[in-house]
């Protein structure tokens, strides 16, 4: 599995990304998604740029970013494994599987392995609830996820 490539933060690219979304009504979320897609996270230094473009205060922009679970304030690992923690997945034992995997890696929810290889995040439902437990490994959906499968996936993630 190929790791995602992100650009290193730089204000010039950020300005171009913001400008490309500005024509939309309510451009804030599209801008934030585009920034995260480019850099892998939304650096603090991006806040004043977004604020200026949308004619808002920096505090307002900060408030929006911090409201949404999706927006990262720090880079994630090279791979991101999102494990579903919602009810349908729980009914198929997802919590036990997740706990074992986290223990194996010595991580807690939201943490990245020290070698920067992988971040484990919670997600609340992927709409794959009839083939639970579910996960998302980078962009790849995974159904009927058992312990062995997830361990292999994590072991092979480079």
């Amino acid at each position, binding site marked *: 599995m190929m790791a995602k490539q992100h650009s290193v933060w730089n204000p010039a690219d950020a300005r171009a990304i913001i400008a490309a979304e500005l024509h939309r009504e309510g451009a804030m979320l599209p801008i*934030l998604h585009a920034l995260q897609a480019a850099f892998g996270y939304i650096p603090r230094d991006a806040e004043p740029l977004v604020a200026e473009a949308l004619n808002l205060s920096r505090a307002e922009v900060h408030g929006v970013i911090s*409201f*949404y679970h999706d927006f990262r304030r720090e880079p994630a690992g090279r791979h991101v494994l999102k494990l579903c923690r919602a*009810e349908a997945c729980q009914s198929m034992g997802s919590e036990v599987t997740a706990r074992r995997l986290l223990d194996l890696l010595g991580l807690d929810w939201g943490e990245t392995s020290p070698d920067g290889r992988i971040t484990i995040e919670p*997600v609340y439902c992927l709409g794959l*609830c*009839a083939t*639970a437990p579910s996960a998302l490994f980078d962009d790849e959906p995974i159904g009927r996820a058992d312990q062995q499968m997830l361990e292999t996936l994590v072991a092979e993630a480079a």
Partner: protein
Amino acid sequence: MKLFIPQDMAAVAVGANRIAAAVEAEARARNMPLTIVRNGSRGLFWLEPLLEVETPAGRIGYGPLTVADVKALFDANIFEGGTHAKCVGPVEAIPFLARQTRFTFARAGIADPASLDDYRALGGYKGLETALSIGPAAIVAAVKDSGLRGRGGAGFPTGIKWETVARTGADRKYIVCNADEGDSGTFADRLIMEADPFMLIEGMTIAGIGVGATQGYIYLRSEYPFAIAMMNRAIALARRAGLLGAAINGSAHAFDIDVRVGAGAYVCGEETSLLESLEGKRGQVRAKPPLPAIKGLFGRPTIINNTITLASVPFILAEGAQRYAELGYGRSRGTMPVQIAGNVRHGGLFECAFGVTLGELVDDIAGGTASGRPVRAVQAGGPLGAYFPPSLFDTPYDYEAFAKRDGLIGHGGLVLFDDTADMARMARFAMEFCAHESCGKCTPCRIGAVRGVETFDKIAAGIEPEKNLALVRDLCETMKLGSLCALGGFTPYPVLSALNHFPQDFTASPLPLAAE
């Protein structure tokens, strides 16, 4: 020779892309000319990945497949009547599908979802044709007459909402599709967007013409990358065909749609929070009134409807309101796509008329649990819905009947749990989820849910269980009465139903998860 392998996210999650690649490679190696159509899913998820072969006797299914099965399928020569152990027979005769009344999901899984020609060939855009010929007032009347109620959870009559927007004058109006589908156990919106995207576009377009709105938004959760890609693709195709844009199908009506991606907040499924989010703000719930129908997105009159609500409209226009309204139970008219999930043997989407009992759905249609153990509880209606024990399985699937039993049908999800489920843990989770997703606007929700989690931890640790159980009930009362929206207001449903129906789970202290 024509084969079908779904491109649906759930099918891909269990290997559909690998099956498609293996089939292609095998056909090439054997020099066999095969056409592989990447269709949407039929919604029979326990059979995914499901491969279908077109034959003179209809489409024959094989599933659930593994890559290792592919070579054997070719060896058995299934394309010329050979047999294989994974054969499930003619797909449309599978009882789970044959017993459905598919109005809204009639096309799901049949064709390539991104083909406008296929959509038209299967009856698509007939509703729009009718809509354009009868005009705005008759469109709204048809939706009203159909008895359609909102499928997002609250069950509000759709026609009345539309009428309000139609009557409110403004320089600009909006149609917002709520595709935030955050409820665990639900995937009907996802299935429609991935399997029949043009139907949603058609439904939104009819709504736009009906109330005089020119801009539509689909607020689509980020957890649905396949649906996002499919909707964007379908919108581009519809635009190119003149079915979106300045002159819908050559008429004087203008309408366009833009997909907006959510950002992982469950509360943004609540309609006013969603509108805030679309405007680029924190997704905090607005006080009502004003209703979104009068002052919605950017202060303009706005229809905000669930994906399935809007997707039900083309059928109603094409086939007539009466045809929809004649099915149902009590004030719940038409069909509901019930989504059966969790620890389930035959999990998937089951569209049927209202009135079927919960027990029929769980035992008869879904065949009980995947584990083969007895069903202990069913959570109906997502994380804000009640847990039903088997003793309540005679409840008819109907908004009012569920409400009478302190439950809700919500967006139509059913999550099955077997007899290993720890209902105290599920009750604690309901509080934890509320605390995690609270928008923070009201104290009973923001603080109450956190207190709820702490109190359940005390109960599990054996600290003053009786006093603390009473405290949980108190908290639930406060949350019910003092919350602005149903996140805080309905979290007591799963909590209290677990307490009332499974009291024995709240006495012993369960082992910590890691020790199991």
